[in-house]
């Protein structure tokens, strides 16, 4: 008995010393966990925490545990700058986040100068166009979402569109892309309306659209205000098809809008419609596992925002596994990474493309009986 105990103790000691011997790998993260973009930042933080637990429980990366340092910038650009400086100071190998496009744009000059890889969870094209040496992003690009919507409109033989967008970075960027590609797809924009991020009513804008000959409405926003558009549209008895952007990637939005969300069409990553995907889809395994793990742990629905966090985090983990905590090597690894299966799609990064996704990463989804499914 005593021998057994001794052996056990010895074994523990050995294990403990090997763990101590392996330096932890430090990953930094800046998310808008509180503040106006909290709805986006919180699932990202949760995802990063969950993945760290999972990887460390499985023995870390090549024996090195992950030390995750999460900073909350409250969706404030000045704070994002401070937090990134802090993370650089903490000697992290790479940074994931920030959540918002504005926050990302604010920290780009710092990470470029400090030469530290940053994988942003924000969507704006400006982040990776023109290409910045140290900056990558995981969400799909607006232009591809626009293309998917216009293609679908062509299929449906619709040529006149009315645009609704929020006056946020996401909304404005989408609005520009919608206008830019309209001509190419033979679409006429008959109305171009905006609303503020905290606006409570959009009937005025929609009434104006009702007075035009628009055949479809395209609503571009990422924050909860977008649900009001659907509710007001239903209230006004407008029956034309409504397209949403990939910012609709949260089942909560569909639930909040209730009946009004039925039949809404939106291009999005496949995460939300994982149940209706065929088993042959190469992403299905990753998506199903992430969704199951997340919903079991946090007792709340998964969203594409958390998915962007997942992609950014796993990309950095893969890099660490392959090349260790060397910032320059991590950057090179990500830039040359091909066929990385994430939640938003299959990423193929290159020196010219730091987004890594094309329009095939989108699936046209719709809301049917309160559930998000692939549109037929």
């Amino acid at each position, binding site marked *: 008995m005593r021998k057994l105990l001794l052996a056990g103790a010895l074994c523990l000691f050995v294990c403990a010393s090997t763990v101590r011997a392996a330096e932890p790998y430090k990953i930094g993260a800046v998310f808008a966990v*509180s503040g106006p973009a909290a709805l986006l930042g919180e699932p990202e933080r949760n995802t990063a925490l969950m993945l760290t637990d999972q990887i460390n429980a499985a023995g870390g990366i090549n024996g090195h545990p992950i030390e995750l340092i999460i*900073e909350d910038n409250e969706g404030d*650009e000045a704070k994002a700058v*401070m937090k990134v400086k802090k993370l650089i100071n903490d000697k992290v190998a790479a940074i994931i986040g920030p959540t918002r496009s504005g926050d990302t*744009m*604010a920290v780009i*000059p710092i990470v470029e100068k400090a030469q530290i890889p940053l994988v942003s969870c924000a969507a704006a094209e*400006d982040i990776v166009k023109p290409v910045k040496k140290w900056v990558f992003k995981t969400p799909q690009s607006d232009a591809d979402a626009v293309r998917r919507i216009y293609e679908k409109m062509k299929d449906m033989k619709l040529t006149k569109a009315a645009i609704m967008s929020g006056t946020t970075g996401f909304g*404005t960027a989408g609005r520009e892309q919608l206008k830019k590609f309209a001509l190419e797809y033979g679409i006429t924009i008959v109305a171009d309306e905006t609303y503020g991020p905290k606006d409570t009513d959009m009937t005025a804008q929609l009434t104006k659209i009702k007075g035009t000959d628009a055949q479809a409405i395209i609503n571009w926003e990422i924050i909860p205000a977008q649900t009001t558009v659907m509710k007001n549209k239903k209230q006004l008895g407008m029956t034309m098809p409504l397209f949403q952007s990939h910012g609709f990637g949260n089942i909560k939005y569909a639930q909040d809008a209730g009946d009004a969300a039925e039949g809404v069409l939106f291009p999005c990553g496949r995460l939300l419609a994982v149940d209706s995907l065929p088993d042959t889809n190469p992403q299905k395994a990753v998506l199903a596992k992430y969704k199951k793990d997340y919903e079991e742990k946090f007792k709340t629905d998964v969203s594409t925002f958390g998915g962007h966090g997942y992609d950014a985090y796993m990309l950095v983990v893969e890099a660490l596994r392959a090349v260790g905590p060397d910032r320059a090597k991590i950057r090179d690894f990500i830039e040359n990474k091909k066929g990385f299966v994430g939640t938003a799609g299959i990423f193929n990064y290159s020196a010219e493309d730091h987004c890594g996704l094309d329009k095939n990463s989108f699936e046209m989804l719709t809301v049917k009986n309160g559930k998000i499914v692939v549109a037929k």
Partner: protein
Amino acid sequence: MAFRRHLPIMLFGCAAAVLPLALKDPYYLGILVFIGIFSIATMGLNLLMGYAGQISLGHAAFYALGAYATGILTAKYNVHFLPALAAAIIVTAGIAYVIGMACLRLKGHYLAVATLAAGEIVFICLNASVGFTGGPSGLAGIPSIEIGGFSFDSDFKFYYLVWAVFILLFILTANIINSRTGRALRCLHSSEVAAAAMGINVTTLKVQIFVLSAVYAALAGVLYGHSVTFISPQASDLMFSVKLLTMIVVGGMGHLWGGVLGAALLTLLPEALSAFHDYELIIYGSILLVIVMFLPGGLMRGFETLYVTILKKVRGRG
């Protein structure tokens, strides 16, 4: 005499000059840069509120206007920094003059709402004119400040620039307060009627101080824009105006050091509290509440009272 009056700021300057050598940590240096920028903005607002007794809830607009003016000129039109700075000051002062002339006829809460509305209109315009300002996505790629071939391109250099500007403005402000104008201002604060009766041109004085404080805010904004090299309409948000006002009240209104103290506390506190995650907001609110409830004169007055009490005790014993 003048020397004695400026002794504290000189000592402060020496301390500020040595500090970065002691902590060459970019994170803390970055925070100190922000504290310096906020201190400059609060100094102007303090002059307006603490000395002239006029409230403004629109100062974030001037802060953003300053940042956008030099930002757009240097980033988009390749103008040199100094001419761009001059343009920024002229533009902000002009807009502040118009707003001041219109709003300063109002008093108390009415003035607060008028300045708030003016500030919000600036915010909305910055958001909506996408072609010029970049809209809500912001304006990126603002170059570092370059004066006579010397580029302030690191936090270390920028720290010295910000605090040098701060000390210069501090001495300037202290001189204004101790001049005829300063006495007129304090008179204005206690009674406008009495001030007018004493032959002070109340309207002109109020507008002058309003414009001056707007220029301080614009200078702070310029420094912010060039230190972060990015600016978005968020900087002209109403909440930022409220934050500046809170800094002054917490630090000590009508006390030149109050603004610095408030800026330092309100910048450092959230950093220190960030470990509390979701509890941060509630703890931050509580600390603010306790300070304001128990030190209504602000931290600066609190320190003074403490100093006087200790002095009395020591003397009483001797």
